[in-house]
């Protein structure tokens, strides 16, 4: 059985450290920026830029998704699918 995800909270500064380790930075408005492409990260669900306050940072190879319940539910479903296959 694959390891189940555990949810934790980080401070904004801790999130910035983690993001920087994967070439992301945060602009003055709090948007997460791909430092290599110089582009905002856009939520697949809401089509809005992901911010330090709204994003969920998921470890592994660091996945950044919107933290709204629907996005998290979709993530959990897709993880179950992967584990089942």
């Amino acid at each position, binding site marked *: 059985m694959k*390891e*189940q*995800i*555990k*949810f*934790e*909270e*980080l*401070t904004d*500064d*801790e*999130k*910035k*450290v*983690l993001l*920087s*380790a*994967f*070439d992301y*930075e945060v602009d003055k408005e709090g948007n997460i920026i791909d*430092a290599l492409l110089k582009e905002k990260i856009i939520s697949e669900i*809401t089509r809005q830029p992901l911010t330090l*306050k*709204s994003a*969920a*940072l*998921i*470890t*592994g*190879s*660091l996945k950044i998704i919107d*933290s*709204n*319940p*629907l996005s*998290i*539910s*979709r*993530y*959990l*479903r897709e993880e*179950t*699918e992967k584990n*089942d296959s």
Partner: protein
Amino acid sequence: MTPDQILLAIKDLQLPEALAYLAANKILNLTKKGFESVRKAIQKKTAKKKVGFVPNKDENTFLKRVAEREYFREFGSILPNHKYSDFIRVGYLIAHLNKLGGQNNRQRVIEIRSSICQRPNGVFLIKIVNLVTTGAVVPVIDYLSELKKQKYDSEHIADIFNEIMLDWKKYAYFVKATTKMKEIITIIKRKVANDQRLIMIFSYGSAKDQTTKAVAQILKDKITEAYFYESKNNKEGDKEVHSSTFTLIESFNGTTE
């Protein structure tokens, strides 16, 4: 503090503790020259464990645990990995927040519901969320489960689920505390006369009294002999709901509607 000293300090720490150490020491940017080894150490720790860093740990842990709910699991076994299960999961979260009450939770419920309503097809999607908050999820999933037992395939069951959701007012009847027994009987009789495959009658609190009396009268009059009848109390939603469900026997043979 040199990168080597930092590396030594975080070497045996778990990822959250290592991040806390770096943040406390104002080392917020690991792309700076000379910090490559620290950056690699953080990447390595990130790859080790599956953790979701989220704004609200309790809310997301609750979402994860919805997977343990009997009816959520049942929906998953009937329609595996169906995208609507995301909305059912969110429905459980909203029901949980409603049960907890308080201004913050009420505000959160408004935010979540509004984010779903604003999505394309939001009016339909919020109905799926409401399935859980009203407790209606129980007879609906029981019905889908019965179809599965009768060996209908997932595609057919998904079509029927869609049909029930799209025409929700036809299939579900929520009795108000002020509704008279006579009116309940008339409405059920009309639905029976139309050979509806599924008739679900829901009542909360004091509305349960006149509903059970009305259903008892319907059963006594023997006008629902073509139907299976079942009644249940469930607490899947915000509050306990009583459901009376009539299922057209023919609907399992594919000969109706």
